[in-house]
């Protein structure tokens, strides 16, 4: 029954594919089906509260091996399903406003596929099924990033995203194969509870491959370069991709297989990678002038926070941050999308020129960015409390710097864009207001859920001196951003230029295209060898007999006669056989 969660979005796909806006607008199909999956997952969450139910289905058998697909219902998985369907629903409602002028069926079809892949992923308890949804998510994000396929930037970004995430997909598959070859089962829960039977070497290999998979999917170092380019997708897609789906699936993978990572001892590699990611992404965010790109780097930054929590044996802290992040990040993207539609630009300085300091814009933006920065009493503050529970003193010190940088780039965006008010009244669409208002409200009050989160999933948090320091530092970042960016002057431009020259290289586009060229060149060499090989064989055969001679013979004679003779011969042979001669 658990698979029912998955069903509405699949139905939505099929309906959109077959009725094609003739009977029913596809956005209504998608929105109503997303609502249905929210209802179903909420009901299931209530029904299965504090239970742990696994449903197995035999997919196929080979010899004694059973390849099972299975679904799981417990607090963790169903909570994720609720979050995913809620965020998806809000984003689909926003899409009614945002995608008004676009090709509807294709968009809603691919969005439905995207959402159903994530819903399937969070409820699957079989590695093969997990992989199926994992890969479907890559493919649907590829399709969505290339939505405006006529733009070269979009088609390049889609390709880059899929190739870089494919490295992770293949690593995941290899890890699954290693585990299956050792345990003979594809069930995630059974594998996790039988870790002691797996030889240590295989355990390390599988865990390392899973970590690579998560890094690539969650756009962490060194894979982070695909995510900012994925901005070429419609903003609603980014909102979904950055919050509840795609990048979240990498962290989710680490959360559910965290016992495997802890048993293998590979977690020591996660910590340095996350720290590198945090600083690189913060600097790149400080360097960007594009709203969506800044948000993209902030996602990479936030995901690195979650990896930090996983690396400090606190996967449930990562989960809490993941859920909170989904709320405020989708809010921020929807705001960026709204500005893009209304003013036609993503450039923060151009937006500044429009003078849009209106409460309807800047209040939700302030809420979202404060959550991102970790300023109390917004979501991020509580998420930091859960996240940092296991941090050591030195890690706390580093984390404070990260908080400062995050706060700085968040409010750089805020103070640059919302500078003055000179626009006339702007008419807003209802389908844009509802999701933004809902998400803003959640961002204000949602943080308090930390206090009863423990009854759903065991979680540790502490409001200690460190957290006070952390929030003071976040406020400091706010003030620094106000001081630096609110009144843009020459020194700012100079600073900006300097930053660009330093941090511009961190996207290592040059290295990427160089490696692409190297691969192509190697391919060219192999191809050249292939040509030589073909020629060599031609030489041999022309030495042994003259092809053209035979050719002339056959072509001068009546060819069709030859074929008829051949066919007749076959018939005679067959007839003889049948006659039993």
């Amino acid at each position, binding site marked *: 029954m658990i698979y029912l969660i998955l069903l509405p979005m699949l139905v939505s796909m099929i309906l959109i594919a077959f009725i094609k806006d003739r009977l029913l607008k596809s956005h209504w199909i998608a929105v109503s089906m997303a609502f249905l999956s929210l209802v179903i997952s909420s009901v299931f969450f209530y029904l299965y509260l504090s239970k742990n139910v696994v449903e197995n289905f035999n997919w196929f058998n080979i010899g004694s091996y059973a390849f099972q697909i299975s679904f799981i219902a417990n607090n963790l998985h169903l909570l994720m399903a609720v979050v995913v369907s809620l965020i998806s629903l809000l984003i689909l409602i926003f899409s009614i406003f945002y995608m008004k002028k676009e090709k509807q069926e294709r968009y809603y079809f691919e969005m439905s596929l995207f959402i159903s892949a994530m819903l399937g992923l969070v409820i699957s308890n079989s590695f093969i099924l997990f992989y199926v949804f994992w890969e479907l998510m890559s493919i649907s994000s590829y399709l969505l990033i290339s939505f405006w396929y006529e733009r070269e930037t979009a088609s390049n970004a889609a390709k880059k995203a899929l190739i870089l995430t494919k490295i992770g997909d*293949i690593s995941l598959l290899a890890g699954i194969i290693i585990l299956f070859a050792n345990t003979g089962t594809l069930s995630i829960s059974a594998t996790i509870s039988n870790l002691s039977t797996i030889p240590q070497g295989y355990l390390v290999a599988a865990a390392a491959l899973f970590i690579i998979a998560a890094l690539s999917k969650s756009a962490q170092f060194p894979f982070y370069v695909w995510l900012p380019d994925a901005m070429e997708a419609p903003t609603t897609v980014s909102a979904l991709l950055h919050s509840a789906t795609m990048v979240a699936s990498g962290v989710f993978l680490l959360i559910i297989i965290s016992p495997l990572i802890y048993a293998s001892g590979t977690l020591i590699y996660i910590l340095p990678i996350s720290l590198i990611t945090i600083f690189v992404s913060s600097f790149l965010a400080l360097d960007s002038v594009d709203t969506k790109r800044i948000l993209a780097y902030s996602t990479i930054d936030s995901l690195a926070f979650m990896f930090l929590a996983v690396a400090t044996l606190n996967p449930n802290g990562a989960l809490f941050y993941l859920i909170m992040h989904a709320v405020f990040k989708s809010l921020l993207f929807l705001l960026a999308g709204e500005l893009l539609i209304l003013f036609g630009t993503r450039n923060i300085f151009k937006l500044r020129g429009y003078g849009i300091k209106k409460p309807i814009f800047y209040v939700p933006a302030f809420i979202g960015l404060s959550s991102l920065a970790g300023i109390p009493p917004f979501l991020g503050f509580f998420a930091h409390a859960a996240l940092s529970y296991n941090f050591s003193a030195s890690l706390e010190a580093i984390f404070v710097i990260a908080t400062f940088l995050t706060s700085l780039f968040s409010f750089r965006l805020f103070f640059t864009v919302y500078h003055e008010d000179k626009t006339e009244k702007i008419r807003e669409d209802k389908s844009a207001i509802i999701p933004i208002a809902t998400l803003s409200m959640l961002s204000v009050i949602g943080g308090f859920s930390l206090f009863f989160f423990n009854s759903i999933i065991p979680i540790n948090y502490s409001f200690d001196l460190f957290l006070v320091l952390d929030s003071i530092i976040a406020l400091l970042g706010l003030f620094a951003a106000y001081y630096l960016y609110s009144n843009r002057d020459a020194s700012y431009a100079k600073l900006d230029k300097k930053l660009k020259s330093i941090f511009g290289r961190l996207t290592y586009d040059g290295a990427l295209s160089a490696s692409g060229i190297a*691969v192509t060149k*190697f391919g060219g060499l192999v191809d050249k060898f292939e040509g030589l090989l073909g020629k060599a064989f031609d030489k041999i055969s022309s030495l042994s007999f003259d092809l053209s001679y035979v050719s002339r013979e056959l072509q001068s004679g009546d060819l069709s006669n030859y074929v008829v003779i051949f*066919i007749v011969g076959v018939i005679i042979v067959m007839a003889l056989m049948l006659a039993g001669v």
Partner: protein
Amino acid sequence: MIDLIYLILPEIVGIALLYLKNAFHSNLSSKTVSYGAMAVTLVILFLGIIFGFDGFNLMISKAIDFSVSFNLNGISLPFLFLAVLLPILVLPSYKYDIADRDLTFNALLLVIYVSLIAVFMSSNLLSLFMFMEISLLSAFFAIFLWGGDGSFNSAMKFLIFTQISSMLILTSFLMAFLYTGSFSLSSIASLLHGANSMYLSIMLLLIIIAAIIKFPVFPLHVWMPGAYYDSATSITAMLSGLFSKLGGYVLLLFIVFLTPNAVGYFSMPVMVLAAISAFYAAFVALSKKDLKLMFSYSSMLYMSLALMGMMSNNPIGIEGSIFLMVSYGFISPLAFVLTGYLKSQAGTTDMTKVGGLMKKLPVFALFFFIAIFASIGVPGFSNFIGEFLVFLGAFKFYPLLIISIVSMLIATGYYLSSIKMVLFEKFLGPVRKLRDLNGSELIQAGVFSLVIIILGILPYILLNSINLGAV
């Protein structure tokens, strides 16, 4: 119960009708005859799958144990399914590149059809060999009679290589006969176990080399680019979809039934070769800007993976390789059929000369996406199961796994480039009205996709029909 002979009777009647029609200058359309015969065969296959098949045996010469005998063994049903269904699915494409010699073509089509079906159900090695020869000879004619410039040389190369391969196969069959005194698959399987391992190894080695040629796998693939490129695209679809499976089928017969004990000696070296071949094919395909050549080398890549799976010598790898062969036996023809369609509309298969077709030909684009995504192993499409099982089967040889995984990554790269070049960005082709897939082509591509998706979602349909224990 349906007698297996009924699967080849309609074609024989069809061939006879075509001959009579020619002799008496009748107005009967040769297309009707051949298509009708194939349709009847398809119906009989489904009846047989429902009611079960009955063997057929016709002794021709007792002295050399030569009989035309049909009996399904544990691995033949998936291939039989492919051999009956695929040629029918390719039919709507012939109108683009088969312009003349209508009668000859239809007769040849039936000969190919009947002989391939007969190969996969023959239980006498001599009759299997005979039907294989008929099919390859017919393919030779099909390549050069309707191919482009230079198709004769390519066809000749194809013929030479396949004949060498056939001689190796025949030698191995004769060795089996010399030891057991029989050509019957089941009696060889039970009698050959006593032979010394050297003898068995030589037999298997001959078959392996033959299969490497027929798949094709590096370095004996040199006939492939020419034969695939110079043939009419619909013929290429048949070559890559069906003819490339002949060697694999014979090799599987040896691995699974005839010389299972000798496989261990060759497992490692042949798998290394297969991994190299996959790697090689991926990089050559990466440099090809012609869609037809790119798909040709891709076909080589997947056949290398199939070889790897069957040589891994465990049930998962073997069943995976069968699944991969059948699955790619539908995917690669779909890719070629679409390439042929592109040629008919845009006048070229050069990827750098088209573009933006997603806007111009949205239905074509949909199926192009399906062909590409199915190839790169997206779950939901059949290749995913095949690749997964092959990799799982080859797990013990994990350094090879890494090489083939890199090949898959390269394949993803060039497949995505082809999407980018063919479907995305701006249209570069000639300024004229393009017609999107409709009518028979739409049904054709639709059924192809349906088969690929059904096999991907319900793989047990195919896997349950495999029984590695039944000769």
